[in-house]
């Protein structure tokens, strides 16, 4: 602070006047891109290889390593059946409580592995006995197993592979080739008719609404693995259009308007699909 009153102020004014003509430090962003440091961590991006294929194979390791769960990954398993999420799981309504359970170290009922449970191999052996262990009659073996268990348990398929000596991959391929084989227990089957009349009457919208309500896709099971949404092969006789069948029972009261609510009510009892808003 100088002794001449006002001199400091005048100096300041002179300084600002000099800076008035000084070069500016602003970076006009869209035209001029700032030089980002090589090591800059600010942006996450997925890498592509030289063929343009995505290198990320959804192994979830980065998401697991992220301390503040800012990485959020979603993917589907190889058969496109189960949507897998990782990340701030509170954002996924169907997995809120799972997150709590997992962090609490509790057992989380995971629908992905429900069909890996052990089965009694006696039935499988009996079926194989009937087909005298012939891998060439695999189709009928598998049909018999499905008739026995209601679906194709993986344990049974492994037993078949072990006993007949045919590769598990071959059996699996056979089982996945034919549409009428199912891998997951389906207690109920919600089916939408795909005949022309139903589609004309809004069967497509109905299917979408049901898919939204059950939180699954056509031909797939609900996240809790309890229900399956499928196409109905043929229109049931005397049923109205559009037609929804629950285990073959036509549900005349379901319309595209109330289908979502109906499906949610249908799926609603199970805690794993209860949403907490």
């Amino acid at each position: 602070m100088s002794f001449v009153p006002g001199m400091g102020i005048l100096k300041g004014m002179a300084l600002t006047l000099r800076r008035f003509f000084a070069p500016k430090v602003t970076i006009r962003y869209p035209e001029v891109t700032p030089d980002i440091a090589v090591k800059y961590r600010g942006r996450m991006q997925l890498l592509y290889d030289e063929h343009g294929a995505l290198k990320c194979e959804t192994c979830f390791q980065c998401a697991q390593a992220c301390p503040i769960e800012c990485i959020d990954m979603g993917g589907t398993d190889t058969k496109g059946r189960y949507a897998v999420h990782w990340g701030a799981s509170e954002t996924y309504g169907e997995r809120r409580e799972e997150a709590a359970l997992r962090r609490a170290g509790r057992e989380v009922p995971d629908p992905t592995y429900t069909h890996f449970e052990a089965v009694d191999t006696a039935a499988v052996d009996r079926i194989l006995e009937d087909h005298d262990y012939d891998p060439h009659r695999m189709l009928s073996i598998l049909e018999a197993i499905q008739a026995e268990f209601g679906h194709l348990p993986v344990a049974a398929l492994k037993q078949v592979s072990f006993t007949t000596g045919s590769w598990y991959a071959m059996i699996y391929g056979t089982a996945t080739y034919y549409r009428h084989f199912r891998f997951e227990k389906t207690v109920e089957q919600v089916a939408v008719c795909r005949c022309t009349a139903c589609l004309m009457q809004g069967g497509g919208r109905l299917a979408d609404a049901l898919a939204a309500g059950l939180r699954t896709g056509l031909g797939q099971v609900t996240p809790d693995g309890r229900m399956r949404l499928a196409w109905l092969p043929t229109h049931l006789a005397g049923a109205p259009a559009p037609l929804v069948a629950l285990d073959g029972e036509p549900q005349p009261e379901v319309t595209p308007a109330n289908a979502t609510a109906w499906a949610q009510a249908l799926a609603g009892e199970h805690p794993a699909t209860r949403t907490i808003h």
Partner: protein
Amino acid sequence: MTTPTRPSLDDPSLTIPVEHAGIFEPIPLARTERQREFYDLRDGEMLLNMGPQHPSTHGVLRVVLKISGEQVVDLDPVLGYLHRGVEKIAENSDFHHIISQLDPLEYVASLFCEWSPVMSFEKLLDVQVPRRAEYIRVLTGELNRIASHMLFLGWYALDLGGITPILWSFAERDEIVEMLAAITGAKLLFNYFRIGGVNGDLNHEFMSRLGDWMSRAGAQLEAGMGLLNENEIFVRRARGLGVLDRETALRMCATGPNLRASGVPFDIRRAHPYSVYPELEFEIPTRREGDSLARYLLRMDEVRQSLRIIDQCLHQMPDGPVMARLPRLLRPRPGRAYSAVEGPRGQYSCYAISDGTDQPFRLRIHDPSFLHLQLVGLLMPGNLIADTMAIMASLDPVMGGVDK
């Protein structure tokens, strides 16, 4: 202590209606002696609620001022708008994750709130940090200190009504932040220090930016300060404002520049040396006045000292690794460790208790801003409303650190 029952907000017994400005305004039930003393208004006194949306409360702070006319009689800071419960989070995440969780505490100088927990974890694990890593820590830390003080300069001038210095100091801070981004990978929350070293060695980009900046840093910083240091209006406002004497500063647990501005040469870098500070030579600037001007000038002196330290670091930088060899999963022996570092605002300390698992049993974060905000209530009464923010800015609290 009996568990208190949950009160309901619309319970009329909880609010004392006070006839004031022609309307009844509810005042919370006085729970403590201090609150009772604060909330009974004499004639001519009224309550003025400053913040949390006030333009110049640093961060999200709410201050209830008791004023008579323009004069502040008393004030009551209300905290907690940024409270994350980071200590609880730390108890639930393992030692590596905690570092990134603690970054946002002191978002202006976040290297220092990584430094103290990292040091305490190293004590728990009996890790010897490589000397090069220590030098890099000191180097980046001092850079961050300069950035923080530059921001203080801008804030202080802004709270006194000058709008230019903050942008000039941001121009400085931006260069430092860019070069720190070149080595740490982030601009604000550098998640850089690791247990047993640092994440990544010095790279060429950082060194070139640093050399470029160091060549003209001194002149630029002086020019930036020149706008204020000689300005009559500024000096007249800051001098003799919010005087904090030596004994009071010690009794109020003030640390850092605010303590040194009151004549106590207490700097943890010298008082309780850590890292490689014993090998570096620098001075501890101290001032006797203890007013806002002294605090401002002291910080500017510290900037000059930090430039010296950076210079020495660059000259004495040893070779070698920057990370100690450690297992991926850290399970320190059960024990307790306390470590403190000298940040731009004072003593950042961390008190960690381990029980042998991969998560700390208890992690206590001590932030200087918390205690310096407490000083405001002491320095403020008797001054004008115009000086509330001036005094607060001269103490330089960061609400992220206050609220944890």
